[in-house]
């Protein structure tokens, strides 16, 4: 059981967005679905400590996330944000960023391949890619760290239907890889059922339903 949220309360912009939430996110592919403002993005950020809860606790592999080295946690539980936010430079520079920060060598080609991108992308200017390509580079950048868990915040919400389908195919490929779990946040419940084994539904900061996808 990688994640367990215990009676978590969290606010954003002064408003309580998660209110006494208790939930478990198992290994494999999980999805947190719900309408805008239900607290999905905040929940995801709690899992790798980009934010901390006002009350309650978040556990990862049986221990409170606040007891772990936060940088190591983020390299193991890696978040891909909703919108691409690449640094100036080439695709290769961006993909190698995480491993370089950790003092490791990066296998850029492998990471690009896992994200469904050709190795030819490496020398290209990151600022000149389409949004769909940038989002895949964001995915490759996270995968270059060889994380145990990927946190995916509405990864297809900014994409056109063709790019969305391509990213979904990539996620289905990743889902089949042993040793890699992901938590997907989406407002699209159908997408959740397509891409995840477990779907949690959030409503007004609380758990509305928990279901296993067929």
């Amino acid at each position: 059981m990688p994640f367990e949220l215990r009676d978590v309360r969290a606010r954003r912009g002064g408003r309580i967005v998660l209110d006494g939430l208790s939930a478990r996110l198992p290994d494999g592919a999980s999805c947190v679905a719900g309408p805008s403002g239900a607290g999905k993005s905040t929940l995801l950020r709690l899992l790798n400590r980009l934010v901390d809860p006002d009350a309650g606790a978040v556990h990862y592999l049986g221990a409170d996330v606040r007891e772990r080295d936060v940088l190591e946690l983020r390299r193991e539980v890696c978040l891909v944000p909703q919108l691409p936010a690449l640094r100036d430079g080439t695709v290769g520079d961006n993909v190698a960023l995480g491993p370089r920060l950790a003092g490791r060598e990066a296998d850029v080609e492998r990471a690009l391949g896992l994200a469904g991108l050709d190795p030819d992308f490496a020398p290209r200017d990151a600022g000149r890619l389409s949004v769909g390509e940038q989002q895949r580079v964001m995915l490759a950048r996270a995968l270059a760290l060889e994380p145990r868990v990927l946190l995916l915040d509405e990864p297809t919400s900014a994409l056109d239907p063709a790019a969305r389908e391509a990213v979904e195919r990539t996620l289905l490929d990743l889902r089949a890889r042993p040793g890699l779990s992901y938590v997907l946040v989406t407002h699209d419940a159908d997408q959740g059922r397509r891409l995840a084994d477990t779907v949690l539904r959030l409503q007004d900061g609380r758990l509305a339903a928990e279901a296993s996808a067929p």
Partner: protein
Amino acid sequence: MSATGVGLAEVAGALALVAVAIGVSLWERARLEGEIAAAAARAFVQLTAVGFVIDFIFERDDLAYVFGLVAVMVGVGTLTARHRARSVPGALWPLLAALTLGAVSTLGLIVALGVFEPEPRFLVPVAGIVIGNAMTASAVALNRLGDEIRARSREIEATLALGATATEAARPLIRASLRTGLVPLIDQTKTTGLVAFPGIMVGSLLAGADPVDAVRLQLVILYALLGAVSLSALTAMALAYRNFFTSAHQLREAREEAGRQQLP
């Protein structure tokens, strides 16, 4: 009549040009007449008061008074810069450290290198110009840093999410902000003498100095300013950027904006 040939009568005569400014404001209905008059009056009172203070310090010829005056200038400069850099939380101490370091290191170095004798008549004006420029550059750089961190919060959080420290995530923004703080002085140094005569040179010439001597004096000041301003702006940012982050390398306040993303 004084050594410069400018007495109170001449100052009063120059008021005619303040009247021109007020006339322009009235003509264009810019409603700046009151502010222009107040600015002219304040300049008169402040500079006269400072003139007496400096006169007092020069007469005593005691470095303790110089240090006292420098401390007051650093204090006022810090408060002014703090007011300008409102977008940066907890900027007071970083700015105080930055201006102190800029002033002390510059004065110390020009005395140690034998550029000037450690006498009030050299140290007071140099301190004034160094602290004034360091104040402006530090405030501009800090303000830019605050704006950059807010505007690029998504990029910062995405970098933090890869296991970057706050320092690593903020470094590109610190670099850009440092450039913003320093470029005006670098441009001024590049174009000096071509576009405008700098103040020290003008003052020396008006006071009857040999032009070559005036130029050398100006060069010393410009070079000292480059060092002091760079050091101050960098110090202010190096100490202030952490206030945007928690000890767990989380982005404060802007992180809320990051969660509320707008689609392109």
